[in-house]
């Protein structure tokens, strides 16, 4: 049975449209113009326990809006959402105890106090038994190598350390569903890799579902077997990561190494591969030939660019 089920979800906002210049501003004072912006438009999908799904799309695609709706922060304009059998909007305590939302650079810890204080507060807020708290805290702190900074004011932590501390705070209560919104944004390459490794290990050792949004394709490629691609509020693709290539890439890459050692690369239509390779083999002094798929990062960037 699915842990997350989204059925024809639509979420619109009303925004004020500003007229140009000072006279426009004055007119806005008297007669403001409002327009509806549809952030998420009639999307449906479901997620099973233990799945780690990548939710990807360009800026303003509706990823965060979807995550916020699934967390119960936003009220859907239409459609229905069910998370662990709850309507998120009801924000029942049993629901809130079973989920966690981590949002990239947005700090959820108490800024002026050490992270350990925020952890202890979460223990009390989520009614975590002392033994479970200690066990989870020890495990998470060790996995994320955070022991040395637990007593340091959150404001004094580096971005990477803060992100790790956010993850600890979000996972202490063993959530069944974890929403990760850009967890590696702004981190350096090493820290990104550490956070990614942690998410992977955590997913393997826990049966909860994880929904991840990220701008870094490396996150998605390394972590997610399934991706949902969203653009302008609509789902373009929902399926295996490997399927993205066959669906969106019309080309393959043909790489040839010539006898003099130089390398040539051709981007060839899938339907013309046999014809083109035989022509290359016939025309050029080829010592080796390699046919491969276009990198998934590139394909997805193309998909977004087209939209």
């Amino acid at each position, binding site marked *: 049975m699915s842990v997350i089920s989204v059925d024809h979800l639509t979420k619109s*906002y009303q925004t004020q449209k500003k007229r140009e210049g000072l006279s426009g501003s004055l007119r806005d004072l008297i007669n403001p113009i409002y327009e509806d912006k549809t952030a998420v438009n009639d999307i449906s999908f479901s997620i099973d326990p233990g799945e780690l799904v990548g939710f990807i799309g360009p800026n303003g695609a509706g990823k965060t809006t979807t995550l916020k709706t699934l967390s119960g922060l936003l009220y859907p304009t239409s459609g229905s959402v069910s998370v662990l059998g709850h309507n998120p909007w009801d924000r029942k305590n049993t629901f809130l105890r079973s989920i966690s939302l981590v949002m990239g650079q947005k700090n959820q810890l108490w800024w002026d106090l050490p992270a350990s204080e925020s952890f202890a507060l979460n223990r009390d*807020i989520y*009614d975590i038994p002392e033994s479970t708290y200690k066990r989870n805290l020890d495990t998470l702190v060790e996995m994320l190598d955070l022991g040395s900074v637990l007593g340091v004011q959150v404001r004094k932590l580096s971005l990477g350390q803060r992100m790790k501390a956010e993850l600890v705070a979000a996972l202490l209560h063993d959530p069944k569903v974890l929403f990760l919104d850009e967890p590696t944004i702004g981190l350096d390459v090493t820290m990104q890799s550490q956070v990614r490794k942690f998410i992977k290990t955590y997913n393997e050792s826990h049966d909860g579902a994880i929904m991840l949004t990220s701008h870094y394709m490396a996150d998605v490629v390394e972590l997610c077997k399934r991706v949902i691609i969203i653009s302008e509020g609509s789902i373009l693709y929902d399926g295996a990561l490997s399927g993205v290539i066959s669906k969106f890439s019309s080309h393959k890459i043909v790489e040839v190494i010539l006898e003099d050692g130089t390398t040539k690369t051709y981007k060839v239509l899938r339907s013309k591969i046999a014809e083109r390779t035989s022509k290359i083999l016939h025309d050029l002094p080829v010592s080796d030939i390699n046919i491969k798929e276009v990198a998934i990062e590139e394909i997805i960037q193309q998909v977004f660019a087209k939209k």
Partner: protein
Amino acid sequence: MKKYLSIFSITLQEYFVYRLNMFMWRVRQIFVFLLPYFLWRAVLGGGGDIYGYDFGSIMTYLFGTTILRSLVMGSRTVDLGWMINSGLLTIPLMRPLNMFRFLLTRDAADKLFNLSFMFIEIPLIFLVFKPPVFLQTDLLILLYAVCSTLLAILIYFYINIIFGSLGFWTRDVWAPRFLLMVILEFATGAMFPLDMLSNLWQKALLWTPFPYLLFIPLRIYLGSSETMVYLLGQLVWVTILSLLSRYIWKRGLLRYEAEGR
């Protein structure tokens, strides 16, 4: 319950991080008392009375409002509009917490913080200026005064929720708040005793919740013959504002956009 105790404790810990802030805030509180003190001393220090208030009774009034202000109007809920607009509200909303209890707990921490310092400042002011004040000794009246103060705290809490909830509809939360602050200074009786006003004004103001924040609790402390009517008035306002704030809050949440977060 434990969760709210922890929130109470962590809110207080937050205050102690900024020592200079803490100190300056206390200095400000002393000035809040001193400014009207010197004003009234200039007017009444030489003897005589105005609207039945001599220097001693006006000092008692000032002393009372200074203490009551810290208790009633010390609040963290004043930040609610900003929390909504900045998206900071997302953090408590995502936790298994009752939002009103969460906000009230933060208010309680603020009030305790204020009160603890009042024990240092009040004797200090007393020693330096030796103002003539009336100390109530009737235990029943003191009990009524405590009840009235608690009701005043709730009235102010709900007013803040209502004004803060404006943040769900507009980004312009500061102007309404400043307007409220000006109204509060005047209509609560913080600047001068409201019975200095004409009967008509007094009666009109009593139809608003504002006098029930400072003026009425102080009247009750001083032993008013209308204590029960006043307490009933406070109860009515608590009920009206509580229902109204819950209604507005529920409507507002539907519009929450969790921006910036």
